[in-house]
Structures are given as C-alpha cells and as structure tokens.
C-alpha cells in the first residue's frame, strides 16, 4: 500500500478547500448520498438548462479527505458539460476505480484526466473506495432525478 499515492497534494488540497461547496441557487435537480458505515454525507445540486447542459453544479456535505476531494474534483470537471457527456465521465470513472488502469473517455482533457487519476490511489484501500465513489453515484441519481437516496453500503 502506498499512503503517498492515496493522499497526494491535490487530494489534500481539494479535501481541505473543496471547490463548489455551496448550494446552487435555482437548482432544478438534486440528490442526497450517504455512507451509513462512516457517516459521510453529500447533497448534490444541479442546474441543467434546456439544452441539457450543466450550467451549475455544487454540493454540501461532510466526509473524509477522499470523499470531499472526490466531490470537489468531480464538480469542477463536469461543470459546463452536457448530460450525456457527464454520464460517460461518471461511468468511465467508476470503471477505473473498480478495475481499469486508466480513463478511456474522449471528453475530458488530458490534464483533467490526470487530476482524476489522483483518486486512483484509493483502489488499494477497498474500504475507502466507497468514499471516492459516493458523490459520483449521487450525481447519477441527481441527473436521473430518481429521488432515491444513494447509499453506498451496497455499492
């Protein structure tokens, strides 16, 4: 295991000073996520315009460095993207965390991918994978407006 890989500077920075940690005014979609084991919570707010573009995204929540950094980086990356693009990014990220070596989507720039890959250190810490994926599952739920609260216990 490699703590340095897990707690890279960028993770610590985003964990300490999360971007988009606020509540979007006039959000039109949202969802809550929760990890019952450790108590981590996240609430994602989306403002999607008529062209299905994410005009704004923000989140509120509490959690460990990994989960806060993950939410922070995620919100940064998907802002301005279109819904179908976001879905592809999310599933690419989840695949990467689960098993793949790298990100394969054609949407993100290489430097954004590099940022995201900083979260891959979590792969060596099975109990912490949930921390990294909570906000991503919750984003999917918000987009689908499925209203069901995301609960990483089962993921």
């Amino acid at each position, binding site marked *: 295991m490699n703590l340095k890989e897990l707690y890279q500077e960028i993770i610590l920075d985003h964990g300490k000073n999360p971007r988009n940690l606020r509540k979007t005014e006039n959000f039109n979609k949202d969802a809550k996520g*929760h990890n*019952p*084991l450790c108590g981590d919570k996240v609430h994602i707010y989306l403002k999607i315009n008529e062209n299905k573009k994410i005009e704004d995204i923000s989140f509120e929540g509490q959690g460990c460095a990994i989960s806060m950094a993950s939410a922070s980086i995620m919100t940064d990356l998907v802002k301005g993207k279109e819904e179908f693009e976001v879905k592809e990014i999310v599933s690419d990220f989840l695949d990467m965390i689960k098993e793949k070596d790298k990100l394969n989507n054609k949407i993100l720039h290489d430097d954004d991918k590099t940022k995201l890959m900083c979260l891959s250190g979590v792969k060596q*810490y*099975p*109990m*912490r994978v949930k921390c990294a994926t909570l906000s991503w599952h919750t984003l999917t739920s918000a987009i689908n407006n499925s209203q069901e609260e995301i*609960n990483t*216990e*089962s993921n």
Partner: protein
Amino acid sequence: MNIIDIKKEFPIFNNKVQNNDLVYLDSANSSQKPLVVIDRIYDFYTKEFSNVGRSVHYLAVAATNLYENTRSSVQKYINAKEKDEIVFTKGATEAINLVASSFGHKYLKEGDEVLITELEHHSNYVPWHYLRKSIGIKIEFAEINQEGEVTIDEIKKKITPKTKIIALTHLSNVTGAILPIKEITQLAHSKGIPVLVDGCQSAPHMKLDMQDLDCDFYAISCHKMYGPTGLGILYAKKKWLEDLPPYQGGGGMINWVKKDDIGYGDLPNKYEAGTMATAQVIAFNESIKFIKKIGIENIAKHEEELIKYGEEILKKNNSVKLIGNPKKRGAVLSFTIDGIHPHDIATILDEDGVAIRAGHHCCQVLHDKLDLTASARASVGVYNTTEDFDKLNLSINKCKKIFNLK
C-alpha cells in the same frame, strides 16, 4: 470416488470412542467436519482475526472480504440469482423464525392459513404456531400417505383461497421422503402463494438450484453440511428481502438513526444485525469447497447406494420395522423394533461405537400420526460405508439377544 480417502479427511475417525471405531450414523442430527474446515477456523483465529464490516484497518478489510467470499460461494453453489439473496443466520431454525416473523407480521391476518405438512420438524411448525397464538392464523397439515410421503395431490387438496404461504420440508428427517418442491412451487405460484422450503436435510445430500426450484425461501443448516456449528443460511428471493421488514435490530443493519426514527440498511445487511458468526461464515467456504471437490452428484450417488444397502439389510432382519417406504429415500433410515424401546436400542448400540439417534427427532406430530412415541434413526454422510450398516445390524442383533427376541 474413494470413500476411504474421503473418510481420512475427517479427523474424528482417527480416534477410538470407548475403545471402538466410531460408526457415526447420526449425520442428520449434525455432520462431522473435515479437517480443512477445522483448520480454516484455526488459521483465521490465529493469524487473521478481526470483526467484519466495521473497521477500516487491514485485518478488518481482509476478514470482510473473506466473509463476503463465502456469501458468493453459497450463491453460486445453490444457484441463487444474486449474492444479496443469501442471509447468514445462526441456524436453519432462526432462518425459518425470521421468515415467519417478518412475512407473518406483514402479510398474515386472522383466519389466514399457513399450509405445512405432517413431516415437519418442530423448527418449521413452532414459529407458525406463534402466529396462530398472536394473530389467529390457522395451520393446516398436508397428510402423509402410506409410504410416509407428501404428494403434490395432497398439497393441491389442502390449498384453499385462504392459504397465504406453504412451508414444507425438502427431505423428511424421519421417513426420508423427498418432496416434489419444484411442482409444489409451480402449483403454489399459479395461485399466488409463496413457498418456504426447510432444506436442512436436503442441502447436504442433493444438488440445489434455487432458480430451478423457484421457491421463495430456503433454509439451510450449515452444521449438517460439513460446516461449523452456530451458522445457518436463509435464501430468499430479493423481492421478499426488499419488501419484508427486518427481523432483529442492532448494529450493522441500519442506514441512519435519529432519536425519533430509524432507516434500515440495504440487502443483505438489513437482516444481519449485530456481530455475525464471522469465523464460522469464513470456514463454511471450505465446507462448500470440500463438497464441490468431491462433487455433490458423487456424494448423492454414494449415499443412495448406502441407504439402499442399509434398507435391504434391515428389511432382512425380522424384528426391524422400517418407517416409511418412499419411492426415493434420502439419507435417513428410521426404524423400530417390536419389544425394544428406541432408547434402549440406542444405548446398546452405543456400547459398540454405533451412534444413532433415538427419540421423536423433533417430529412429534409425525410420530403421533404413526402412533409411535419414539423411533430409532440411522442417517448417513459422505464418510459412511456399507460396513457401517453391517455393524449396525450386528449391534441390533445384540439388542435382540439382550431382550430375548428372536
């Protein structure tokens, strides 16, 4: 399959019991354990022990993975559709109590009927009796035929518009009858009735396929299946586990907890309250591997031959009366001897190292029906041989001699 080699994997047979070789014919009560299972418990406690699910340190993560590996193995072994359909309990008894309580309190009301059979073990009767007392449901008994079987026709006859669930054994622990579960489930489902199967006696001896059987609930007792004591399994279709309320409440089964309300966790955590039988679950994976290594078909074939042999030898013994005469007899042979009470038989057999069970085998309703207070029962596992039945027969003859029977 070489039985002698397999028997060597069970250390219990290395030691004499009161100067005799052990002739263990009590596997329907509980099976002996192969060394791989015992070693797994030992290794887990000496090198890897931690509680599961709750901590993030190395040992806890490893233990949690091992624990969940067993769940996957069980899922595959019984061909359940999803891993989350496997719930660990302390035994088959708890598994049935769970269903009776959770299903019963949600779906049963006064006057509703639960259909069980005269073959049922108390574990598949007492939990329903509780609902009879508390809710006022009725319990109907499908009756046995001359051979000690319960037929699909008898089930058909006993289903009424008020039948809300059918709960029955897969393999009788007294007559050895194997019930036509797949046909019964089809019939029941055609009338919208769920089916619970008590698989205690079938699981160690038959190939199990939940998706083929299509039953709603299936209860298994791990200690009868070459596994550790203190562990059972409830298989339930996901729709039921999602739909029914949880059973016991405690740590690990919640989602969120406030002073005024509580949200329950997802499957299968919802049904696994408190610290589970960690070591036992992890060791049970070895039981499954053990069975798979030999092949359940080979085990079934071996046991079938054994029981046929036992049946023949006991039929030739003029004082012995076999109980039941099912078309296909599972791994048990129950009998009585006119003039010798089963307890006296068991005591005398024990003197020769022959371990059988005497009593009502937790089936008093069946014994009443057969007009018996007790019976003797020889039951087999993969380690038994035809020689064991020879010894049984010899010891029975000794009983007869002591009691001056011919």
